[in-house]
Structures are given as structure tokens and as C-alpha cells.
């Protein structure tokens, strides 16, 4: 466990970008054998700081000390030589190569000067994985192993390069709850072996459970460093955001009415023609939020696509407010009262080059008052935008600002303003808070509950169990294209986690 010797010190790190100070005289230290969490909202400066440490950025001011000695990091190579390893949020692995090949890549053991010694590589990998309790098969191909295993490979890669300091950038973002707790066990065994870990996250509960100390950044400045045993979720949220934040979604008991979205025995194929949704039946009634939980890639995307007319249905039926919408085109579905907050606001929800007024008109431009006989009235687009931007509290730009100029949270507000502003009967929200910070998440959640309270049906699809649990009135778990269980909102996370990985099969009472 942690002793008081410092593995790493960052002193007064300042990094400026044009128009913003991303890191403002940040002090940070890491004791040997501790997990030190770096907590902050998007844009608080966590990644900049780590990129400085990893040699990707050069600080304008400040000093990095490793083992008490000042060092200069001019590239990741220097950082690796100093014993720093980084596990990125998006893995840097080659899918068709084996675990061992990936681990030794760039630093391969050789025989007789030139010949790749795969056997030695495999042995070395086996030795490392046994020592740290990181079970992986060195001969397995990356593409055939789970995301959690892939992450272990990334960690092994760093250990293979003799890392003593590990930086983990949002490591649990891609993991199931089970995989996350396995990861935490691995991190514990690493610190027992004397490694030091910097754990970057914006999830409060996991920071509290894994970290020894927590440093909170806000707007490029270090707000506080505190031992995690003295911290609470509420206190940390306040430090991150700078004001009181409502972590629990405030909502009354649901008052479900008639079913507005009804899906019967739906089968949908994915892009490769394989069946991705296999006989899903569900119902969302007016005045309730139904959450679909599941690990990414279990048919959620195809299900949403089918509901919103983006993908043809193989068999089964979809009804919106009693009208058949099976394989109707997107425009018909949207006009029949389905609102869709797409998974990726930048790629699918917005035309970034368009002004906010144009983005807000994306589904209504064909109708009066926006247009008549194909003739567009930009002034009316702007008038509507002005109203929506005010009603939905979008900041950082007016009707004529380009969508690209807004922060992620405000971009999402624009999408929500468009979809909710059309007064849909059914709202499909896919990952509505992905990549947003605490303040913006609070806003989105409040809006979704408001929509529910206006007697609409809300279908929420999210990979974040927290979000599913705090918003949903009913929870359906999707696994391999099927609904494998229905749960109430008070279900423990672990139980959902088991169902999400196919641990139990229960046919949903639809």
C-alpha cells in the first residue's frame, strides 16, 4: 500500500492554448503504491495535464519530477523511458494480432539479431500476467477477446515496458460493472507490487471506491486534493462543478397511461445481414420512462434504428400511438410523433456547419411557417430558434452561431430542444448524456423526466447503468438481441450486471 515516498511530482504546471489556460499552475503528486484519482468535468484540464506528463504537450511553465529528479518529457518515448505507462480510453491495439504480439510490439524480443522470438515474448507475457493476476491467453487474437481483456492487454503492454507509474484514462467507460470490479482488483494487486496509479474519471462512486487520494480540477485549476476517506459524492460534485449539484434525479412516481410505443416480436438485421434484434417485444406507455440496459453491441442500435425508420425490419411490428410504423421511412416516423435524440450528437444529431437556427429546423423546414411551396423563410427559422434557445437554456451562441462553436452540453441542449420542441408522443433517447459533464447531465435528466410528466412515452437506451437506474420506471435488459429480463428501478446494479452478460434468462412480460 501507499507509503510516503513520492513517485512523481508535478509542480506549477501551466499550459496555455489560444484563448484559454488549460492548466493553471497545477501541483500534483503521486505517492509510491497509491491510486490517485484525477477528477474533473470535461474541459477541466485532466487530459491536458496527463498529456503534459506523457510528453505529448510541452508545458509553458512548471516542472516534472520523478523520484525527486527533475525530468524533461519531450515525447512519449521519454515518458516510457521514465517508467510511465498510459492506458488510453480508446485502445491502441491491432485486432488481428495476438495478445503477445500486441504487447511486445515496438519492443520485440529478438533471436540472433533479427528474428522475432515469439516464444520468449509469450513467456514474458505469461510471467507478467501471473505476477499481477492479469489472466489473459498470450496466443488469443485481440479481436476475439472481450473489451475487459483488451484493457488488461493495454495494462500488460505498459508493464512490459517496465512502467512504474500507470495512467488510466477513464478506464471504466467501456466496461460492465463486473469487468470494472475485476479491474479494481487488478489495480489493487498492482499497487501492492509497488506501482503507482493515476486514475482519471468523472464518475464519483468509482473514484471513491478505488482511490487513496483524489485531486479535483476545475477550469484548469486544482481545487483540492483530499484523501478519499474524507470525501463524499456530494462534496466531490460540488468541488467539480463549483455549486450544489443534484445527483439523484428528482422525480415522482410514474403514472402510466395507454401504451404509445408497442413493439411485437421484432427482428432486425445489422449491416452485415446478421440478426441483431431477435424477437423483441416491449411496450412504453404514456407517462413512463423505460430504460434499456445492456453492454454495447447487443442490438440496441439496431432496435433504435428500426423504431426511427432508419433500418428495415425483418419481421415483427412497431406501433406508435396505435398506428403501424413498421418499416415506415424516417420522415414519416418523425412526423407521426417520434422524437429521436441520437446516440452521437456530433455525427448524427447535428450538422455542425449549420447555424443553430438551421439545426433546429432540421425536421420542420419543409412545413409552414418555415417554408411554403419549397421556399424557405430564414427569418422564421431564426425566430423559432430564438424561442427554443431561450426555453431550453442553450448558452454560448445565438440563432446564427454555428453548432460547432458550442460546448458538448449546449450542443446536446440544441438536439433536445429540437426533438422535445416538436412535442413528440414518443421520445427515443439514445445515450443522451454521453460525454457530458455533471451539470449538463443533470439538465438532460431533468428534461427527460419533464417529458415523461407531460404524459409522453420515453424510451431510454444507455450503457451507463447509473443513468438507467436513476431515470427509468421500468428497466429492460438486452442481451444478444433479446430482452432477457425486466426489472424495477430499485434493482441492485450487480443483478442487472449479471443479466447484461447473459447470466440469467427471463422472458420479459411485455
Amino acid at each position: 500500500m501507499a507509503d510516503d515516498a513520492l513517485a512523481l511530482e508535478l509542480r506549477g504546471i501551466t499550459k496555455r492554448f489560444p484563448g484559454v489556460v488549460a492548466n493553471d499552475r497545477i501541483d500534483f503528486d503521486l505517492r509510491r503504491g497509491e491510486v490517485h484519482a484525477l477528477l474533473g468535468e470535461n474541459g477541466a484540464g485532466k487530459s491536458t495535464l496527463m498529456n503534459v506528463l506523457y510528453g505529448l504537450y510541452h508545458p509553458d511553465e512548471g516542472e516534472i519530477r520523478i523520484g525527486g529528479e527533475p525530468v524533461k518529457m519531450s515525447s512519449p518515448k521519454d515518458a516510457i523511458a521514465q517508467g510511465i505507462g498510459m492506458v488510453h480510453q480508446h485502445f491502441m491495439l491491432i485486432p488481428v494480432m495476438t495478445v503477445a504480439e500486441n504487447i511486445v510490439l515496438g519492443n520485440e524480443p529478438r533471436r540472433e539479431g533479427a528474428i522475432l522470438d515469439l516464444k520468449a515474448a509469450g513467456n514474458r507475457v505469461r510471467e507478467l500476467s501471473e505476477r499481477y493476476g492479469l489472466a489473459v491467453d498470450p496466443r488469443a487474437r485481440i479481436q476475439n477477446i472481450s473489451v475487459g481483456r483488451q484493457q488488461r492487454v493495454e495494462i500488460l503492454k505498459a508493464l512490459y515496458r517496465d512502467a512504474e507509474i500507470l495512467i488510466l484514462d477513464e478506464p471504466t467507460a467501456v466496461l460492465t460493472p463486473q469487468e470494472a470490479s475485476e479491474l479494481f482488483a487488478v489495480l489493487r494487486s498492482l499497487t501492492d507490487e509497488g506501482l503507482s496509479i493515476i486514475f482519471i474519471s468523472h464518475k464519483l462512486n468509482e473514484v471513491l471506491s478505488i482511490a487513496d487520494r483524489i485531486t479535483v480540477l476545475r477550469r484548469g485549476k486544482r481545487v483540492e486534493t483530499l484523501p478519499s476517506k474524507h470525501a463524499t459524492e456530494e462534496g466531490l460534485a460540488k468541488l467539480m462543478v463549483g455549486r450544489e449539484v443534484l445527483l439523484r434525479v428528482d422525480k415522482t412516481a410514474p403514472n402510466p397511461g395507454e401504451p404509445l410505443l408497442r413493439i411485437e416480436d421484432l427482428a432486425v438485421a445489422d449491416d452485415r445481414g446478421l440478426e441483431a434484434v431477435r424477437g423483441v417485444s416491449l411496450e412504453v406507455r404514456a407517462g413512463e420512462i423505460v430504460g434499456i440496459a445492456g453492454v454495447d453491441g447487443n442490438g440496441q442500435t439496431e432496435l433504435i434504428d428500426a423504431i426511427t425508420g432508419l433500418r428495415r425490419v425483418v419481421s415483427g411490428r412497431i406501433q406508435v400511438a396505435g398506428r403501424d410504423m413498421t418499416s415506415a421511412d424516417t420522415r414519416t416516423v418523425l412526423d407521426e410523433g417520434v422524437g429521436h435524440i441520437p446516440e452521437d450528437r456530433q455525427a448524427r444529431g447535428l450538422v455542425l456547419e449549420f447555424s443553430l437556427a438551421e439545426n433546429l429546423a432540421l425536421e420542420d423546414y419543409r412545413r409552414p411557417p418555415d417554408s411554403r411551396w419549397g421556399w424557405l423563410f430564414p427569418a422564421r427559422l431564426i425566430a423559432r430558434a430564438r424561442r427554443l434557445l431561450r426555453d431550453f437554456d442553450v448558452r454560448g451562441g445565438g440563432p446564427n452561431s454555428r453548432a460547432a462553436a458550442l460546448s458538448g452540453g449546449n450542443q446536446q441542449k440544441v438536439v433536445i430542444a429540437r426533438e422535445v420542441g416538436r412535442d413528440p408522443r414518443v421520445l427515443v433517447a439514445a445515450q443522451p448524456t454521453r460525454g457530458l459533464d455533471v451539470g449538463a447531465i443533470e439538465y438532460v435528466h431533468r428534461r427527460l423526466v419533464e417529458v415523461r410528466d407531460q404524459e409522453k412515452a420515453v424510451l431510454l437506451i444507455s450503457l451507463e447503468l447509473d443513468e438507467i437506474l436513476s431515470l427509468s420506471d421500468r428497466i429492460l435488459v438486452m442481451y444478444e438481441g433479446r430482452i432477457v429480463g425486466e426489472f424495477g428501478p430499485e434493482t441492485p446494479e450487480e443483478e442487472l450486471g449479471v443479466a447484461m452478460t447473459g447470466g440469467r434468462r427471463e422472458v420479459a412480460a411485455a
Partner: protein
Amino acid sequence: MTEPQVTPPVEEGPGETVASRFAFYQRAGGILTPLVTTVFAFFIGGLVVLLITHKNPFSTYKAIFNGTGLNWFFPWISHAERVNAAYNLQSTLLLTTPLILTGLAVAFAFRAGLFNIGGQGQYAAGSIVGVWVASSLTGLPGLLHIVLGIVLGALAGGALAGIAGFLRATVGAHEVITTIMLNWIVFWLAGWLFGQQGPLQTSRERSLTQSNDIAQNTHLHVFWGNPILQGLHVGFFIALAMLVVYWVILNRTTLGYEVRAVGFNPEAARYAGIDVRRIYFLSMAISGTFAGLAGVIDVLGWKFVLSVDDIQGQAGAGAVGFLGIAVALLGRNSAVGIFFSALLFGALLNGTSDRHLDPTVFPPTLAENLTLLIQGLVLLFIGADILVIYLWRARRRIVPGKLRSSST
């Protein structure tokens, strides 16, 4: 409720589609980059003149400038100079006319995220249909005959590009490939139509591989200069009107809104219920209509007859259809920009042609190559300004793409 405004500098990189990338560079460079680009191209061109001919590049450029007729606008030139300048300017604007239209053709497709490089074939299709309509159907009243020829010629260009748009929309065949292939279909079709024993070969002289002359009353009215000496015809105003039409379609119609949405982000457009495939087809068809219009206007304005050589000789990169790409690029797909860049290229073509350039100042054989040289440099620097902006941005983003995916 407030969300803290800790917006980091919005690090947007070049976007995902051609159109959004283009819009990005356009914002980054503004009007300055095309201007600087042009000046720089002329500067390098001048260096070449100096090195090869050992002539003063300024006197060469002055001769080219006078050859373009743009000195007509100067109030201080003598009467004799003005007469000559007027003649030169008419020739320049005569070339500017089709360049505006082929520039619009490329630009319109560009706005939908498509690259129409078959402007030359669509231009040829327009001129073939134009010459056919205007040389047959004699007896129609002149105005009706002209309108019919122009409409059918423009539609021919639209239909040809529409094929490429249709293929893109249905089977995903890339329009760069299909428009080039369609070019050659038209070039060889013209060879058959106007060739020996071809169905549209002239009845005047059996050894000539060309069309019949168009009817006298289908000649476009020459409003400035001498009709015998290729004065400026009213087609120039059609081209100017099309600049307005282009702007209006894109900015004031739902179709233009859809085209821009698809061009910037086809995924978001699809998610919003826009039929992306329909837009691909329509924008290619409209694009081709502009190019077809250029072809028919040239026929009715000053060519009056088409020969096989005329069409097949235009397959090279110097032809107006291909020059439209340069016009659109330099004009940055905006109506005003396209007007000025069409004028620049029209002036260049005309000012350096040996008809206008004083042979004692510059050897005629080099003259045309100087045009190509400057054209090439302009295009090169358009590419280079993108490169320059990219490098300039890369300076503060040490790892490109890194910032976009991570949080700060």
C-alpha cells in the same frame, strides 16, 4: 439552471465530408487566401517569364492585361486603345460566360458533398443537343426556337450528370468515376453523330465531320460589339442570372437546405428524415444542368456549328468543363467568388492567346503555356493553402485528432 461555461477552445478539425472540410478551410482562410493564392501564382509566373525569356515580367503582364481588355475600364486610355480594349473585353467575357456556368456546376455538386468532374461531358451534351435543335426544326419563331434549344441543351447536361447521381444514389458507384466515364461516352457519341455518314453530319459537304450550321434566327443577340467579330451575346446575362439562381436555390429553398445538410453531414440529414439518395440524384442533375447550359449557350452564342474535333479536342484539361473545377475551387463555391474567378480564368485564357498578346513582347508559343502555368499554380496553391492552414493549426495541436477525442 446554469451549466458552467468551461468550454475549452473548440478544437474542430477538418470535418468528415468534402463539403464540411471545404467550409472549414473557407472560414479559416476567408477571402484572403484566394486573393493571396492568385497574387502568388502570378508572382511565380512572372519569375518564370523572367528566367526563360529574360523579359521584364511587368511588361509581359501589362501586355496580357491589355490583351484581356480589362483596361477598357480605365478612363484615361485613348480612343483607339478603347476600341481595341472593347474588342478584347468582349472576347474575355465571351469566355467568362461558360466558365461561370461550369464553375456553378462543380460548385453545386460540391455543396452536396459530390465531386462532379464530368462538366466537360455535360457541356458537350448540352452543345450537341443545342446544335441539333437549333439546326433542325427550322421554321419555328426565333425566340421560341432559342428557348427550346437552351432548355433541351441544359436538360441534356442535367440528364447526363443525373445518370451519375442516380448510380451514386442506388448502387453507390462513385461519381468521380462515373462522370469521367460518361464524358467519354459523349465524346465518342459526338464522333458518331457528326462523323462520316453520321446521322447529324452536315449535308453541306460530305467530307466535313461536323454538324449543320444552326439557323440564323437562333443566334443569340449580340448586344455589345460586332456580331461578325464575335461580339458579346446575351448569354452573358443568362450566366449572371444563374449566379443568382444558384444562390437562391441554396439559400432560399428547402431543396438547397437539404443539399447543404447532406453536403455537410449526410448522417445527420438521414437521421432527420431527409432522403439523402434523392438529394444525390437531384444535385447531380442540377449540377449537370448548369454545365449543359454552358454548352448550348456557347453554340447559340458564337460557335454556331459543332465539329467532331471541337468536341473530342476538348477532352484535355484546358477545356471549359474542366476549368470549371478550378473556377469553383478558387471561387470557394460562392456565387460572387465564382463570378470573379471565372472572370480571372476567362481573362487569362484570352489575354495570353496569341491573338491578343504582342508577339514582340512574348513568343506566342510560350503564351498559351503561360496560361496553363498560371492556372496550374493557382490550383496548386489552392491545394497548398489547405496545407498551410493545416500546418498552421498543427503547430498548436501536436497530435492531430488527439484533442478531439479526449476531454481537454
